[in-house]
């Protein structure tokens, strides 16, 4: 039966079909919907799912589960794999018992990310197999296969979808359906030679890993994920979704180009050798790093040293960004020397010239805007404002986001900037989920090493940017069940901050006052600006009366400069549109008492 499924939902089906027992993750676009799709059915399938506090934790929990013999998966976005890299690399030595699949979704073009790194490199680095699905159907099917392969090889397997697979939708044959995890108990069987990576054991396990490379190659060589079509003597080799772009391009060009589609890394040596012997020139099409291209350059030396290789290194395929079938088509046409069929889009210079930009912005009534406004009032434009990763990074125009590097970096950058010699005020900001993910060690470090900085924790009681997932501060688990709720204030205190105060950013005066005290503090101060994400609050049924501008408005633009999308400037006066969520902050900013609550709302 076919269903219309999001790629991530298709991967979730694969996890269920494989009968996995434990799935862990930290939310991250484009991977978040995998665990979200599992949440409604996890109990029925005897499946433990969790939002872990970060990706390293997620992978380690999944490893523990695998060592009891259960199938497990750890799910993350590509940069999350950096956080999980420590267990990931040694896991290749220890190996697994129950099949363990690491799912790391890459983001060509940085749609929602701070970089364009390529997870395939990680798999090669760790010497484990990697699967590169082209579409939602393959993503589901490969997920099932990945568990089987992992168990067969006793190695973790990396599944690497990209944004256009994870966030694509397609008709997916859901096939065999779902398998429940067996209820027979799984136990941890002691085996120090495997599970204790002491140097002596690690040396042995490294040899085992090296010996397993032939078995990996043999398994992948015979897998159905690499497809060869021999036609003319010009060829294309393409990885994952690029294979679909190439097939479309070849069909549209009505050419007889041969094609080898690659879905596995390492690529299949024999199939590649057959291809190299057939073609005289080959174009490598892949997104992100030239992983396949480097393989082809190496392998062709042995099988066809004359082979002409085009790709990223020759400028035929862009080195960065994402591809589509037009890019593939023009590159293939170029290889075929068919300049007349190269297509340029119709020229649309007007669009750039006349259209106003429409960048994403914080929602109307977002508490981050209010907190940042007060922060800037107190610290002034001269202070240094390291920031972090979350919705609040969108406030870069407010002047309170001076840095954004990776999850949890804000506090450490603030410390480093202080120790580097900067003597201005330094006030960094970090979201609640980001603080719990990786910010706590930074705060501890700043306290320990006497960094005189202010740390603002923007606590909106959710992981907003990735789709409002719960975290340990919310008292709710991934399945919506109640659990202990961790107090961020208590954490800041116990980590040793000299000043800790929680304030509601919707109360402007109180927030200004708290920031002033934090600024005066001689040691390390922590301000917790706590107010629920307005989007989440509205979903939960919270309704506030909207505000409006009355005749007192003198057109000073103070409220407009605050930047709430609900406030417009029209004919020399401010006005509030229907997007207002009633946070009331603009009314406290207005120096003329011109903004008031609408008393009689229909």
């Amino acid at each position, binding site marked *: 039966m076919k269903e219309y499924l999001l790629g991530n939902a298709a991967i979730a089906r694969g996890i269920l079909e494989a009968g996995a027992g434990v799935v862990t993750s930290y939310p991250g676009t484009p991977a978040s919907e995998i665990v979200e799709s599992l949440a409604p059915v996890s109990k029925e399938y005897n499946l433990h799912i969790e939002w872990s506090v970060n990706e390293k934790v997620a992978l380690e929990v999944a490893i523990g589960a695998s060592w009891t013999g259960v199938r497990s998966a750890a799910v993350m976005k590509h940069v999350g794999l950096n956080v999980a890299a420590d267990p990931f690399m040694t896991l290749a030595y220890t190996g697994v018992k129950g099949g363990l699949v690491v799912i790391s979704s890459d983001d060509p073009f940085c749609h929602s990310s701070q970089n364009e790194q390529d997870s395939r490199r990680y798999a090669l680095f760790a010497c484990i197999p990697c699967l590169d699905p082209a579409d939602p159907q393959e993503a589901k099917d490969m997920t099932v296969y990945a568990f089987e392969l992992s168990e067969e090889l006793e190695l973790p397997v990396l599944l690497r979808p990209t944004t256009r697979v994870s966030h*694509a939708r397609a008709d997916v044959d859901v096939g065999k359906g779902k398998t429940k995890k067996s209820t027979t108990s799984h136990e941890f069987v002691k085996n120090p030679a495997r599970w204790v990576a002491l140097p002596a054991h690690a040396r042995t396990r490294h040899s085992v890993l090296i010996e397993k490379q032939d078995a990996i190659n043999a398994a992948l060589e015979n897998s159905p994920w690499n497809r060869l079509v021999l036609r003319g003597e010009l060829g294309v080799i393409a990885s994952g979704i690029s294979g679909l772009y190439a097939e*479309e391009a070849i069909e549209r060009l009505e050419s007889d180009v041969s094609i080898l589609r690659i879905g596995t890394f390492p690529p299949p040596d024999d199939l590649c050798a057959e291809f190299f012997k057939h073609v005289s020139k080959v174009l490598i099409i892949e997104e992100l790093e030239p992983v396949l291209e480097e393989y082809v350059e190496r392998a062709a030396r042995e099988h066809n040293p004359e082979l002409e290789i085009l790709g990223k290194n020759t400028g035929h395929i862009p080195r960065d960004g994402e591809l589509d079938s037009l890019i593939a088509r023009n590159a293939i046409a170029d290889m075929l020397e068919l300049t007349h069929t190269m297509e340029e889009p119709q020229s649309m210079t007007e669009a750039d010239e006349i259209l106003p930009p429409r960048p994403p912005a914080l929602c109307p009534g977002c508490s981050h805007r209010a907190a940042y406004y007060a922060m800037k009032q107190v610290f002034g434009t001269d202070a240094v404002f390291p920031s972090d990763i979350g919705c609040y990074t969108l406030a870069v125009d407010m002047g309170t986001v001076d840095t954004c590097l990776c999850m949890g970096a804000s506090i450490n950058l603030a410390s480093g900037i202080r120790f580097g010699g900067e003597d201005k005020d330094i006030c960094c900001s970090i979201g609640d989920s980001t603080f719990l993910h990786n910010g706590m060690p930074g705060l501890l470090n700043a306290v320990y090493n006497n960094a005189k900085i202010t740390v603002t924790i923007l606590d909106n009681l959710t992981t907003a940017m990735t789709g409002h997932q719960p975290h340990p501060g919310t008292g709710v688990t991934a399945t919506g069940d109640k659990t202990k709720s961790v107090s961020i204030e208590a954490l800041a205190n116990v980590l040793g901050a000299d000043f800790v105060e929680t304030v509601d950013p919707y109360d402007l005066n109180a927030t200004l006052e708290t920031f002033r005290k934090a600024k005066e503090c001689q040691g390390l101060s922590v301000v917790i600006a706590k107010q629920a994400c307005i989007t989440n609050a509205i979903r939960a049924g919270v309704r506030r009366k909207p505000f409006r501008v009355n005749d007192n408005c003198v057109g000073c633009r103070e409220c407009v400069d605050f930047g709430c999308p609900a406030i417009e400037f029209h004919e020399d006066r401010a006005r509030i549109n229907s997007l207002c969520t009633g946070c009331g902050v603009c009314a406290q900013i207005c120096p003329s008492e011109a903004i008031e609550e609408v008393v009689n709302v229909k």
Partner: protein
Amino acid sequence: MRTSECCDIVVAGVGGQGVILLSNIIGKAAVKEGSPVRAAETHGMAQRGGSVITHIRLGCKFGPLVPVGGADILLGLEPAEALRYAHYLSKGGIALVNTNPVLPSTVTTGRAKYPPLDEILAPLRRICSDVKTLDATKLAANAGNPQAMNVVMLGALSKYMPLREEIVIESLRESVPAKFLEVNRRAFELGKIEME
């Protein structure tokens, strides 16, 4: 339009206008028809009130992205966004455009200007010989809820995409809450009639 085999649609709009819901109704209808379908959507950071685009490829077995210059239909839920993504249109393609603007904050705060409708439609008409306009937001208000604008546009689109109307309506029924079904049915009809 390549009704028989493949029809590439690009939907452009603003975060919050229901672009993804609209695309999903079309995609599910295609599956009901037993036809292959591919779609791509925007999640995460780009969504917060920013410009949003989805790709839907009916009868397609390749990748989910409509190539630039390849769309048979451009469905613009907002005029400026229609122009922003007009380069996706193929030479013989058609554009269906809601004429009701949503002003970006760069405009409402006086940092940028929103061009008059004529200036948006003129370049669109230059590259596309078949631009159809409708005030879908007003039609949706007439149907009972301006939020149903996306379904007015779906009704308009139903005249041009190779999916049977009753299947599209069935998919609509399964995709919206029952209490809003009546309004949405009216919105669909009003959009469709506008194209007659």
